[in-house]
């Protein structure tokens, strides 16, 4: 159990004025509207105070004022990069409260879409991490290939970013005919780009030197901070809800939980968190390939299990392994058609709370990279 420590730096008798620098809320690399109040001693960061809430969009207030199906669009807008995955814990929670069983095809589709969205999210994460390090080109390579994933989502749901596709007890509509081929094509494209980015960015000596040994997050501290997803796995903890508490049909697939190994620097540094994301893209491709095999070809009514009236009673903490980490919804239903309370436990919010602890004593250029390796989306932090 690591205690919170105040780092005291002894500068002897030198009296130097420290700079208080305000990074954000509008800054090229705070990944949105995060504001970091940084105290600098030359280039060394002595204190980081995150100020959040610049994108507080009152999600929980909305959840109390909308009916259960109407909440789903707002859930899309939490972590707007991973809308498809966001819907899954909420929908699973309501289905469990109401005792709804969905068909095998619906589960397989949900799995495929969640994994596709995981790839899209990790692409952005690795890309922006590279951009923080000054490499602009991989960012555009990933955005180019992310379009092919978005095209599939668009053909399914009609929207590019915020889908509202996974519904309580089913899906918005059935797959289109060439879905399988599209997905297989996308996997090929992704693998090709990943190999390219490996050469261009991740194996680059400068990049490795920049990212190793900074922002080291030991495993026990990570668990105590409640970190999840690639941030926790980067510290070497093989915790993945897909394997530890299987939902959908993840228990049927053979995949590896990627953990950081500290092969270049220290275990749990920024490089490890990034490489975990990189390898997870490949694992997601494998899951998708297996899921496509068990996906039934026959078309069926994916809306058949959808309840006429959604008014569950009871309370549940539903969670799922999102690309960013564990996204949980604590849902309280009192038998009316509107939730009494929905609290979203967002992975980014929790992961970000570890930032001050791991960035003290680093340089200001490293602070940006550490923030990039934590991979936050402010929509989910502020909700």
């Amino acid at each position: 159990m690591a205690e919170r420590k105040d780092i005291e730096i002894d500068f002897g008798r030198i009296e130097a004025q420290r700079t208080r620098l305000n990074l954000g809320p509008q800054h090229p690399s705070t990944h949105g509207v995060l504001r970091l109040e940084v105290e600098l001693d030359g280039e060394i960061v002595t204190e980081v105070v995150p100020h959040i809430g610049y994108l507080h969009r009152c999600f929980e207030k909305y959840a109390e004022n909308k009916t259960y199906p109407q909440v789903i669009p707002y859930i899309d807008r939490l972590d707007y990069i991973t809308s498809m995955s966001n819907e899954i814990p909420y929908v699973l929670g309501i289905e469990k409260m109401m005792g709804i069983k969905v068909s095998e095809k619906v589960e397989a589709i949900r799995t495929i879409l969640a994994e596709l969205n995981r790839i899209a999210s990790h692409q952005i994460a690795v890309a922006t991490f590279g951009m923080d390090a000054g490499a602009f080109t991989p960012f555009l390579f990933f955005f180019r290939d992310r379009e092919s994933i978005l095209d599939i989502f668009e053909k399914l749901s009609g929207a590019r970013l915020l889908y509202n596709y996974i519904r309580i007890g089913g899906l918005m509509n059935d797959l289109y005919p060439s879905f399988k081929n599209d997905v297989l094509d996308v996997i090929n494209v992704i693998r090709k780009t990943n190999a390219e980015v490996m050469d261009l960015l991740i194996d680059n000596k400068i990049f490795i030197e920049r990212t190793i040994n900074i922002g080291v997050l030991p495993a026990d501290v990570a668990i105590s901070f409640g970190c999840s997803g690639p941030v926790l796995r980067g510290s070497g903890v093989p915790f993945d809800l897909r394997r530890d508490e299987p939902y959908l049909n993840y228990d049927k697939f053979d995949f590896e939980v990627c953990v950081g190994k500290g092969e270049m620097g220290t275990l749990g540094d920024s490089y490890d968190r990034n490489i975990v994301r990189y390898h997870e893209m490949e694992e997601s491709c494998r899951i998708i390939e297996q899921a496509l095999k068990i996906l039934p070809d026959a078309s069926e009514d994916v809306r058949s299990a959808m309840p006429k009236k959604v008014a569950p009673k009871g309370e549940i903490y539903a969670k799922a392994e999102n690309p960013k980490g564990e996204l949980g919804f604590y849902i309280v239903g009192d038998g009316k058609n509107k939730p009494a309370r929905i609290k979203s436990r967002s992975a980014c919010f929790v992961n970000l709370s570890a930032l001050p602890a791991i960035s003290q004593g680093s340089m200001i250029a490293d602070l940006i990279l550490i923030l990039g390796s934590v991979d936050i989306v402010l929509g989910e932090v502020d909700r």
Partner: protein
Amino acid sequence: MESNIILQLFGDNIWSYLIIVAIPLVFVIIYALVAILGELKVASWVQDRLGPMRTGWKGVIQPIAEVVKLLQKEDITPKNVNKPLFNTAPFVMFVGSFAAFAVIPFSSKFIPADLNVGLFYVFAVSSFAVIGILMGGWSSNNKYSMLGGIRSAAQMISYEIPMALSILAIAALSQSLNMNTIIELQNGGFWNWNIFGGSGPWYKLLFLPFTLILFLIYFIGSLAETNRTPFDIPEGESEIVAGYHTEYSGMKFAMFFFAEYANMFVVSALVTIMFFGGWQSPFGDFLNDPIMQIVWFLLKSMFFVFVQIWLRWTLPRVRVDQLMYITWKVMLPFAFIAFLGIATWAMLKP
């Protein structure tokens, strides 16, 4: 006198000198426009995009639109800046890079000022840029600018030392600091360029590693000198917004912009002069008349400008301490060794 066609044509009077001054100025402006377009287009090419397409044919007059726009922009002098320093910094920076053009030989018949310490002079005036950046960074009264200015000063001063050593080695090899002399010694085709040890018998190739090291050291140093990636930490966008020119707008910013591109050309020209034969044709006397010499010189220099742009869009950025590590602990020892090697070759040379 014989190295300057303008003086031969128009005589030794004030008008000739004005023309001599005007030619590099016009060249800098045209070159900067081409380089800006090149930057945009090369970046787009690397990133699988098209780049500017709507301004003229394939966007070729995009830089002109930029200049027309920049001329109209409001020129903000923020309230709490140190006004004299803030207003002079861009000009100091531009003068620093433009002054270097005085000794750059575009051809055997055109060199604005044929100084016998040309190499030394270029090196001296290009340090002017440090003062400009530091003035701009400090006077802006902005923490990002301040960080950028200080970083830049530290970086440029450190990188000048290994660069100076490689210049010294070339001076030892050519026994001269005069640009034209250095280039003339490299005549007779690419085989006699300094990168291959200058003119000499075959065993000059034994010293090839030393010249290559010197070339790399000079080129890497020049990237740091011009604040290009991977050493663009003074204006590293992801950390300190726009670095030392965060607070500058309109034409003052354009001066910084121009100065940066002019600096890029100066260092590329120096690489060409010192290692790649300057205006010499690569094929001996073939196509080596004064007009073609200009073409050769520009081709070689622009190639290195292109390499700088290309690197910028490919590599990540290094950190401040790594930057210092590279210069003091890697480049400096190697520069010493290479200097000794070249000095040996200069003594052995028949």
